[in-house]
Structure formats: C-alpha cells, structure tokens
C-alpha cells in the first residue's frame, strides 16, 4: 500500500489531515508490521480523526467500537439472536412435526432433532458486533477501538487475545479466523493506566496539542475562508489559553469550531468584545471562562494590547503562588 513514510504523509494530507512525522512513521510501521497502534493524548487532538482518515486513505471500511464501563463480549464480539431462533422454531413447527413423524421412542426423536441442530446455531442467528465484523469482513477494514481506558480490565484481557491472533472462537461454530488482518487503532484519554500486556503488543503514539504553526496550518486547512491575520490571532489566543491554569484546555477541534464561528459571524478583527462573546466555544466551564475574562480585564488595566489578548505569564504565575 505505502512504500515510504513520505507516501503515508501525502495520503493522509490528501484526506485533509496534517500528520506529524511521528504519526506518519507510526502508521507506516503499523501497516508494515500489522501491529495495532495505541494513540494516547488529551481529548480532541485528532486521535479518532486519525482512524477515519487512515481508513479513507487506504480505501478500507472503518469499523468503530466505542468502549464504556461495563462493556462485555456480547456487546463487542457477538450475540445469539434468541428472539429470531424462537420465532423460527414457532414458524417451523409443522416442519418439525413432519421431521418427527413416525418416531417411536423419545431417544430417536432427540437424535433426529440433534441432527438438525446446526440450523439453529449457524451464522444466520448470530448478531455480529464490531470485533467479529472486523474479523469476518470480506474486504480489509480499519478497526477503531475508541477510549479503551473506559472499558474494564477484564475486557482489556479479552481484547489481547483477539488482537494478538486475529481469531475468535465461538463454541458452537468453532474458530473464526480473520480473512484480512484488520488495521487496528486504539485510543485512550489516559484516565487510567492500561495493562502492560496491551501496551507491549501495540505501537505507541503520543499525540499532544500541536505547536502554533501546526495549529495554524490545521485552521487554514479546515476553515479555508478565514482571513489569514484573524486565523493567526485566533491560534495565538488558543495557545495562550493552553498555557493558563484551566480545568479543561481548549482542544484542536474547539479551535476549529471557534474559527468556524468567527467566519460565520463575519468577523474581520478580533477585539475584546468579540472574544468575550465567543469564548464559550473554547471554554466549557464557567470557572475557566471567568478566569480567562479576569485575565483579559487585568491585561487591559496594565497594558492595552492591540486586540486585548491574554498575557499568560502573570496569570499562571498567580495561580502557582497559591
């Protein structure tokens, strides 16, 4: 598929995603080695997006498994459709009577029924969940296992088995082997430590907030209509906010949302009133909003800035002192 790391970069860029060298190398290695990638980093830096563009760039279908506390095999792998089985039994009652006609003993009846067992435990009555779908798919797929840190430790252990051999065993059907080995991307927001066994099997990719230039590139790419100067100012402000002591820092996706909002509002110049009115797109906690506003007001008092931008040094200094 890809011959060099440069190919990966071009292919991902063609999908309107700006990959760092780190990301391109890891994707390239994953393709070559067939190993899963474990992507960690703060929320909203484009981990899930990476899976989407990876799938699109390679022309594979994307299958997504969203993890949550209490997720188990029946939700992730497969489940028997009992209702359908019952329904079929009811509908086929006549047929069953025919089958059992002329039977003299109970044992003989049981034997005849047992011979037909395969009908009821076949893939016809099986409800494939994302993992099984990814394994049995006719075409190569990309499997996204999102927020694995939210699932329980037991599920993680179960996942290990699937990820190391790409096969699952269903007691009634036997072992199902993957036709094409799926490319796997696991994401984690690092809310808890993942097991070492899982990490050992994966290539590790740490995606952090982008630098100012990278973020500007992203904004220019995703919100093409935004005037260059405004984009520059917006990115600068976001970078400053990330330097402050906040409960939740604005993510890349929020920067993009904000840039879109500025474009929709047809704003040409970033002044204090505009920032105050639209800051809630970036900051989602009341405390954070107030803190940012206070920093702006203080800034106005000490030194009038050309567009009332925040000065991160005295803000963070103040809170460290507490």
């Amino acid at each position, binding site marked *: 598929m890809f011959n060099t*790391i440069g190919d990966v970069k071009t292919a991902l860029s063609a999908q309107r995603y700006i990959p760092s*060298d*780190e990301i*391109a*190398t*890891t994707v*390239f*290695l994953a393709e*070559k*080695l067939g*190993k899963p*990638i*474990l992507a*960690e980093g703060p929320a909203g830096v484009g981990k899930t997006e990476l899976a989407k563009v990876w799938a699109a760039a390679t022309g594979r279908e994307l299958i997504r498994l969203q993890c949550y*506390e*209490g997720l188990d095999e029946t939700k992730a792998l497969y489940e*028997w459709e*009992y*209702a359908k089985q*019952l329904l079929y039994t009811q509908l086929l009652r006549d047929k069953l009577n025919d089958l059992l006609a002329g039977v003299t003993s109970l044992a003989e009846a049981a034997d005849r029924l047992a011979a037909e067992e395969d009908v009821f435990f076949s893939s016809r009555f099986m409800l494939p969940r994302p993992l099984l779908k990814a394994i049995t798919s006719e075409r190569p797929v990309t499997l996204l296992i999102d927020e694995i840190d939210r699932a*329980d*430790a*037991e599920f993680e252990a179960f996942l290990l088995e699937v990820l190391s051999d790409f096969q699952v065993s269903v007691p009634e059907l036997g072992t199902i082997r993957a036709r094409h080995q799926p490319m796997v991307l696991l994401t984690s927001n*690092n809310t*808890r*430590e993942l*097991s*070492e066994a899982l*990490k*050992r099997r*994966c*290539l*590790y*990719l*740490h995606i952090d907030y982008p630098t100012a230039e990278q973020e500007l590139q992203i904004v220019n790419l995703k919100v093409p209509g935004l005037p260059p100067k405004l984009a520059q100012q917006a990115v600068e402000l976001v970078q400053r906010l990330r330097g402050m002591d906040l409960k939740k820092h604005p993510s890349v996706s929020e920067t993009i949302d904000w840039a879109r909002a500025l474009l929709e509002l047809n704003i040409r110049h970033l002044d204090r009133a505009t920032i105050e009115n639209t800051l809630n797109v970036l900051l989602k906690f009341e405390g954070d909003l107030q803190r940012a506003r206070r920093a702006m007001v203080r800034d106005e008092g000490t030194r009038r800035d050309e567009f009332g931008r925040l000065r991160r040094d005295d803000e963070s200094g103040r809170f460290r002192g507490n």
Partner: protein
Amino acid sequence: MDQRIVDFIHALRAKGVRISVAESIDAMRCVEIAGVADKQFFRSALRASLVKEPRDLPTFDELFPRFFGLDTPPPLQQPGGGMSPEEREKLAQMLQQMLASLSPEQLRRLFEMMMTGQGMSGSQMRQFIDEHTTATQMTTGFQPWATRRAMRELQFDRLEQLLQELLQKLREAGVSEAALRQLEQEARENREALAQQIGREVGNGLQQREAEERRRRPVEDLQDRPFEELKYQDDDDMRAVINRLAAQLRTRVALRQKRANKGALDAKSTIRANLRYSGVPLDIRHRRKHLKPRITVICDVSGSMRAVTGFMLMLVYALQDQISRTRPFVYYRTIADVQADFQQLRPEEAIRVVPERVQGGPWQTSLGSCLETFTRDHLDAVDRRTTVIFLGDGDDHMSPPNPRAFETIKRRAHRVVWFNPEPPYRWGREDNHMHIYAPMCDAVHHVSNLRQLVAAVDGLFS
C-alpha cells in the same frame, strides 16, 4: 547499528523505562522497515516501539541524542594529511620506535590511536576501560568523577608529553614546520575525540552495571516487616513488592465483583438472558451498582509517617484501573492538593516531591487547622460516591481537635475510613486526637506493615 540500539535499550532500562524483550525485537524490525537514513523517522520508529508511557518520553528524548545524536564523538582522522610521502614515512618510523618502547600497555594503545587515527568501536572501548581502570565500579551519579578516574588510570595526560616528544624527533629529522603544526593540530583533535569517547563509554558502562545489579537482586518478602524498617528500601524493590500485591488484590477484587449480586433487578437484561430458556427466568440479572470507588486520600507526611504514606499512595496508584477517581492530599502544618504531581511524575517520584508541597517541621503537625483548610478549599474532592481515607497517626501538635470539620467531610462523603500505623493503646495519649476522630469514622484500621495495609485497602472494594 544493532549493537548501538541494544545499548540504547539497556540505557533506557537502567533509567527505569520498562522494555520487554518482545518490544526490543519490535524496535529492531521497525528500524529495519523505517530505515536509518532519515533521522526523524528513525527516531519516531524507536519511540513508537519502545516507549509506551507519556512520562517516559522525556527520558527517551534525553538519551536519544546521547546515542544517535550530534554529540557522538567525532570519528578519529588520520593525522599527517599535510605531509609529503617521505615525511609520512618518517612519521611512521618514529612512531614505531616510540610505541615499541612505550609502557604501560594502555597508554601505548591510546597513543597509537591518537597518532594513527585507528580508533575502537564503542564496545571495544568499553572493554578497554573495564580492563584497565576501576572507573565503572562507581555509581551513575558520580559519572564526572568516574570519567576523571578513568583518565587518570589510563594516564591520559601523558599523551601531550608524548606528542611533544614525537614532534621534537620529527623536527630533528627535518620535517617542515608547517607540516608539524598541522600534525599537532590533528593529533590534538583526535585526543579530544578519544576523551569524549572515553567519557561516554564510562557513562554507558556505569548504567549497564547498575541495570545488571538491579536484575540480580532478589525481591524479599517484605510484607510482615514494620514500615519503619522499610523506609530505606530501594525504589525498585518497593515497586516490585507493590506491583505484586496490587496484582493479587486486583484479581481478588475482580472476582468478587463478578460474583456479587448487588443492586436492583434488571428486568430487561433478565428477559434477554432467559430467552434461551424460553422465557422462564432461571438466570436472574441484577443492575450493577457503581462498583468502582472514588477515593480521596488525605495523608500525613510528617517524618514518622512518610514510609507508610509512600506505600499507601503507590498501592492506590497501582490499582488505578479498579478506582474511578483518585484525589491525593498531603498535610503537615499545612495541607495541599498533590494531584498534579501524580499526573506528571511516576508515583514513586511524586511521593518523593510531595512533602515539599506543605510546610512543617518536627512537632509541627497541625491536623485540626488542616481539616479547617480542607473544608474551606477542597470540599469539591468529596461527594457522595467518594470514600475518604485518612492516613495518619492522629497526632496534632499545634491546634485543638476539629470534630466539626471532620463531621462536614463525613456528611458529604460516602464513607470515611482511617488508616493508623500507631498501635491503638497510644490513641488519645498526649497530643494524639485519634480517640476523638475514631468514633466518627465508618472504619478504622491499624496498619503497621504491608500485609495489614493490603487487607485494609482490600476492604475498600467490598
């Protein structure tokens, strides 16, 4: 190159990064695929396959340039570039003469390398240093001293004198002054390069030896030793013990959670589960309660308590996957939220720095006023799902007991538990206020060794 990568992996391990054999094989394959031509890609390939924890990234970034970066010592060059063939002939002759009569052996080798430009590979140099010096028997923290010792034992400073001798001889043999000056310059550059290489290999040797020693040391069973004796244990031993205990505890907790039939009947799930018995409810399903506790730990970090606090916090952090949220606080004369430290550092490192977050000295524990501060500033760390754990001896040298603040915390919390390493007969004596707080707790555990601590933590999950 392979050898260099293996050395690099050893150095990472010595710094405490956990790398398995499988991962080092992966690293080799990744490098094979990504190639070594582009350094950025090479670096990313190693990083993706070796480092799996964000907090180990700085270690990687620090070590990488030392192994593959610009500050690898420059290669030796052959001196005598500006000489005519006859002059070069003379140089070789003179050098042979000098080398033949030169002792000790290690100095002879060094001088030869300096004057011919034929150096050693990293591992050869390390062996050379091991054979001729005692430098690698020191510990890593003393690397500059170790390097100096190696230089001294190799008699490195005599190289200058030997060089002058050689130059003198060549001068007498009629070699032009310009050629000699160039020779001197080149020889000096070689000497600089050798010095750098020695310094680096001494460092590598030290790290490797430490890593090996760490591997060889058996892990003692420390469970029944009192905490005071454990205070001076090595970080790695502590981590090994804690990890083992945590693994035991985790299995126990997971099993118990699986078998527990708690909570209300889950009608939907029961119907679904019993379809296979054509609707006869044989298998009753219950709604799972919130089984993962949220924990707020408030730890005493006065001198006598530090060891047990360290173990407690390490145990809590080793069990992160069984806990939905942890908020650590430490107190002495003042109280501080130390969550940020635990997010940025490894638990064992965080434990070393957290006592600096609070003020206090001997006989300055001020539990009462710390409780007051906590109820004023940090009550958001306590809600109805939170189990609050106090870990302390209950001593208070500065302020009166503060049952009112304690009551405020208790009212908000799901449970309040106290772990106390002091024996119960001491509670309430002198400055100890344990007798006031104890009746207000949901449970009080006396923990004086690891076994008791593990049992007490186990109690949190039931």
